[in-house]
């Protein structure tokens, strides 16, 4: 177990040393995952709500496909985006392969189904009265949908944190389309893989600790913001 202590110690040292390369890797990780999350949120929250609310034909099958894609293997997502962006692929002209942009695209593919599927579920769990009240007060469908989204905020925040967790943790997609290029597309997870491949277990653990620490701080911030926004969305009191 010495390797754990070693890993934690090394992690602390790494953090305190403010290692240039590590900072750069960490910032890139955050940048890629948050960009992907924001894009996925912008697309996924409305899409999820529409799927939850609109009686369009094939809606159930479509929802089911979304739920399925929540389990899209990152490697597969990476491979498919790779083939699109590859020189020979339809988007080869853009020259995006092995850039952070490509990593964002691949991660959007992973996050979108999660944001969309969990948003749909949160919206569907709302009581009918939300819609009725909005409609009765003269809201258009769009306005009513927006109101329902606001009422589902707790569930949607859960969707976003779940997606963020997935993005920060995954390695298959960013590895494939980013290429894990030192100083350019290397992120925390690909570093961990590299270190384990090299047999540097304690360094892998150290980087993992940093990743988790960042995730922890991010969650803290999200929960604080959430609390501030939805002050009275308190929890059940058990007496």
């Amino acid at each position: 177990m010495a390797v754990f202590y070693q890993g934690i110690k090394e992690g602390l040292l790494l953090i305190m040393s403010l290692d240039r390369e590590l900072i750069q890797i960490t910032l890139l990780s955050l940048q890629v995952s948050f960009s992907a999350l924001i894009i996925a949120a912008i697309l996924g929250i409305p899409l999820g709500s529409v799927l939850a609310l609109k009686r369009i034909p094939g809606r159930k099958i479509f929802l089911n496909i979304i739920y399925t894609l929540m389990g899209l293997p990152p490697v597969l997502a990476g491979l498919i985006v790779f083939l699109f962006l590859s020189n020979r692929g339809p988007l080869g002209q853009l020259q995006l392969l092995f850039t952070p942009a490509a990593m964002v695209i691949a991660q959007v593919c992973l996050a979108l189904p999660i944001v969309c599927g969990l948003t749909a579920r949160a919206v569907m769990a709302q009581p009918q009265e939300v819609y009725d009240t909005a409609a009765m007060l003269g809201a258009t469908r769009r306005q009513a949908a927006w109101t329902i989204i606001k009422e589902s905020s707790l569930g949607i925040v859960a969707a976003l944190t779940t997606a963020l967790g997935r993005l920060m943790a995954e390695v298959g997609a960013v590895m494939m389309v980013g290429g894990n290029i030192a100083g350019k597309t290397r992120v925390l997870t690909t570093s961990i893989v590299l270190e384990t491949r090299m047999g540097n277990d304690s360094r892998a653990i150290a980087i993992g600790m940093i990743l988790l620490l960042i995730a922890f701080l991010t969650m803290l911030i999200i929960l604080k913001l959430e609390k501030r926004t939805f002050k009275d969305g308190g929890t059940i009191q058990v007496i």
Partner: protein
Amino acid sequence: MAALFRLYNVTKRYRSREVLNIRKMEVNKGRIYTILGPNGAGKTTLLRVMSLLTVNDSGRIEVFGEEVSWNKSQLVRLRRHMAMVTQTSFMFKGSVYYNVAYGLKVRKRPEPEQRKIVKECLELMGMSDFADYPAQKLSGGERQKVAIARALAVKPAVLFLDEPTSSLEPNSAMDIEHYIKFINSQYNTTVIMVTHNLFQARRLAEEIFFLWDGKIIEHGSCEDLFTRARDERTRAFLQGNF
């Protein structure tokens, strides 16, 4: 007089149960109607169908002279002339202010106007102190008052009220009755109200529909119904007075 609502052979079923079956019903502008009937008779369902919140299974509905086709833009256009206080007085997350301003916000009224109207309506309901209170934490009666304020804020041409004073203290209930009469005479607002309070019905209603098992079994002026109801069931119901 123009008929605001016309229903012909309107039915609604849940599962295999027919909960509404209206042969013919007309509502005219500027009057106060009361819908009476036992629990589960279909009163709320009828209000929901009239306010276009529930699609009928068959039959024809005309609102403001237009046949209802349930298309999106028509629905919003027609609904913008209505408001309802529902039986449960559901409150959105957020403050009392937000709830009362909601109908004005979706109509994109200017902010200062919103503030003014919300203030007025809350004052009217004696709820001014609660503007910043989280609406979902209100007591049952307070919530009902806010729901009324919320409906009044949009100055509807037709006001649906589903047992609007059921949780109110007597004095507030009386105030609201007075106010209903006031807006009816002042703005010619049509009021369609469900109530179990027979005294209230008697004090307010110009016309009464009596609903039984989804059907209108009696319809007439308030006086007629209370003094010489034709249907035996109506008479029995009205005897349980209190």
